[in-house]
């Protein structure tokens, strides 16, 4: 098998040249999107360069505290990102539930996946811990964002249906069931869809990266399968926790709907 082709500065220049060509075509076509393309390319370059140096430092220093710190930063960023991307007013209670579900759901999935499935040694090996945690946290973040939006929207738009169910003797759990199920579906469906299309419609980034770096496709595929199952587990666990705890924030201790509009 051939070794990895490291990209020289010239080769990188040609990669960027492609963007310049695209910008030229866009300008000729009269579509005013060249500014966004330029900003996106510059942001991507700066972010990845910085990440590259940080990762090199972390991998070389092999310090468990650094690994833990990176995971905390990822979690905090992901939780903050959910609050922003939900694009609606969220109560303090539901924000707390989002943070709790993300922390418990992703951390337990990360620990299970890295220490039992992959069995890394030492337990904090940043080469495994950081990228795999990133994938699990990132996908759970996307799942929970969809779940939050659907749950809050559902509880607002179907408030009268939930209240009628309460009038008919339903517990809050029964009254909110269809909304909770719907929120869980919308959170988990993108992960299920990506599992269905994987390997046929597209080759996932992690597997492509491993193959390009010279690892056998069989090993890369085994890793990809394991990571997909890990992502599914993490998204499902995080979202189940969120919807099961989240719907309750719309009711008080007397099983009455809270006036949240």
């Amino acid at each position, binding site marked *: 098998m051939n070794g990895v082709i490291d990209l020289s500065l010239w080769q990188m220049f040609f990669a960027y040249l492609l963007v310049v060509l695209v910008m030229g075509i866009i300008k000729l076509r009269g579509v005013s999107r060249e500014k966004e393309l330029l900003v996106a390319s510059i942001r991507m370059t700066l972010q990845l360069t910085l990440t590259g140096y940080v990762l090199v430092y972390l991998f070389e220093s092999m310090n468990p505290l650094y690994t833990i710190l990176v995971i905390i930063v990822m979690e905090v960023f992901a939780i903050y990102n959910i609050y922003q991307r939900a694009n609606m007013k969220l109560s303090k209670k539901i924000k707390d539930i989002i943070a709790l579900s993300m922390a418990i759901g992703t951390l337990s999935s990360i620990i299970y996946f890295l220490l039992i499935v992959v069995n890394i040694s030492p337990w904090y090996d940043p080469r495994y811990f950081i990228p795999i945690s990133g994938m699990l946290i990132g996908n759970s973040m996307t799942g929970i964002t969809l779940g939050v939006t659907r749950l809050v929207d559902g509880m607002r738009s179907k408030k*009268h*249906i939930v*209240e009628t169910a309460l*009038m*008919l*003797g339903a517990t809050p759990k*029964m009254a909110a069931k269809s909304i909770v199920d719907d929120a869980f579906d919308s959170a988990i469906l993108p992960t299920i869809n990506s599992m269905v299309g994987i390997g046929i419609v597209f080759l996932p980034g992690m597997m492509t990266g491993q193959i390009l770096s010279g690892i056998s496709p069989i090993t890369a595929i085994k890793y990809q399968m394991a990571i997909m199952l890990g992502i599914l587990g993490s998204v499902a666990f995080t979202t189940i926790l969120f919807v099961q705890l989240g719907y309750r924030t719309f009711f008080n201790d007397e*099983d*009455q709907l809270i006036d949240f509009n």
Partner: protein
Amino acid sequence: MYEIRNVKYKNILDIDNLKIPEKKVTSIVGKSGSGKTTLLRLLNKLISCDTGTILFKDKSLKEINSVELRRKVIMLPQQPIIFEGSIRENLLIGLEFSEKELLPDDRLNEILKLVHLDKSLDSEAEKLSGGEKQRVALGRVILMDPEVLLLDEPSSALDDLTEDKIIEFVANYSRDNNKTLILVTHSKDISKKYSDIEIVIESGRISSIESKEA
């Protein structure tokens, strides 16, 4: 059945003392915005009063589990709410919510006859007219065999004739089956025609109580 003592709810309701007897038809009459629906919601424990006490069978509502109470005291809202699915599913959903035994189609068809609705159980409930939906909602509540029925004026979804028929039916059903009916209406005529006790509310306060038997 109910006793209300010094109850206040926001700036909507302020009741010093009120007793609602069991196994009678009690109507609560008042203009729109006078606090009638709020009173029903308090009795059903969909909301709780800010101050004061509401007793149900001599026990404070605070000490009664809300879900348990709502399985005995069922409220029919002004706007009928229909769930996705057939008439059958809509009739049975109350029994499912209150974890009671589901009933066979024969019994469901009897209920449809009782509420004067000539439709198949398989018909899609969403496609019914406002009045028909109100009758399905009423049938759903009767199937649950509650001790107390709280009926918020159904007039918004019905024409006068249908409204009269429905209230007549519910009043007769309640008397025949020894149920307590608390009926909210804006119509003095309906109240006079069907109720044993008439409570008039004005701006959140009780202005008069009249009993036919007195």
